[in-house]
């Protein structure tokens, strides 16, 4: 249970990536954070053999080359990847966006906060709840969290 949690982030914004990485350095859950810069890189990474699949994937929606929605849809069609919990991590959070991504299979929707302490709080919550779904026999298919 005290094991390391593997996290994957796909985000094309450099500031957001740094912000995200720093937040994980400061929260007390042990994590390994792997980052890719856009959707194409993400899919290439996930389809490599011999990678450790992440316990959760954080996915930005607006990325060049391949959008978050496209990645989400692709991942849900790939048998060995479709069980990875997916958290949308986006600057926009319209009710329509949230509902659409949930319907397409996302589990979590995070609206990127502007301050660092809120981000740490949100990420801690997402990681611990996700971990409960991972270890306590909860139903993944109805795991939805908008935050």
């Amino acid at each position: 249970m005290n094991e390391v949690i593997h996290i994957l982030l796909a985000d094309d914004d450099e500031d957001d990536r740094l912000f995200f990485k720093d937040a994980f350095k400061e929260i007390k859950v042990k994590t390994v954070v792997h980052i890719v810069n856009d959707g194409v890189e993400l899919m290439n990474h996930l389809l490599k053999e011999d990678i450790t699949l992440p316990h959760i994937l954080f996915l930005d929606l607006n990325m060049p080359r391949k959008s978050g929605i496209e990645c989400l849809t692709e991942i849900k069609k790939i048998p060995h990847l479709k069980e990875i919990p997916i958290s949308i991590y986006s600057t926009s959070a319209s009710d329509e966006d949230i509902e659409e991504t949930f319907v397409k299979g996302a589990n979590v929707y995070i609206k990127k906060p502007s301050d660092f302490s809120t981000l740490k709080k949100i990420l801690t919550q997402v990681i611990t709840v996700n971990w409960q779904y991972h270890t306590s026999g909860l139903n993944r298919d109805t795991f939805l969290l908008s935050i």
Partner: protein
Amino acid sequence: MKLFLKFDLNTAYKKILQEQLDKHTSDYALVSFGEVDINDSVSSEQLKELYAQLSSYGFEVVESNKSILIQKIKDTIVEMIFMEDDLPATKISSYLANKLNHSYGYLANVFSEVTYTTIENFIILQRIERAKQLLITNQLTLTEIAWKLSYSSVAHLSTQFKNTTGLTPTVFQRIINKRRKVFGEGKTEEPDAE
């Protein structure tokens, strides 16, 4: 006749562990020499049995007392919320303390230390989980669900639902229904309440 044996300790170790683990769960990983990660929610009874079988091969499980206790806490909570139709009138904290023979303070500390979350949060998560299940599988109204799960009012359930999931029960229900259409009916399975 004398036999002179050469053997690979690592292979023997793996083989024995796998054979014993396979009897109880398929959801495990041999992390490194001397460390096993059991992913699924194996019951504390099964764990006990597993340890007994392993000890006959000279294996001893160390550093697991806390994990066993955590598992018992979780089992007890889930049992209270999922198995019983009407929740007992006693407070969960005293129920846990009685059943597990530890003070609630001690249980709460161990739980937070290992899971990074509190027993209270875990209970809320499980109750909302049960509410979700009732919302999508039964034709119960929110009022009936609130009553069934011993919430003081529908408003209390709705608020806790919203705080836990970020969604109202109505939006949640709509999303799950739409999702079933996208992924086909078989997608949403019964949750296992182990």
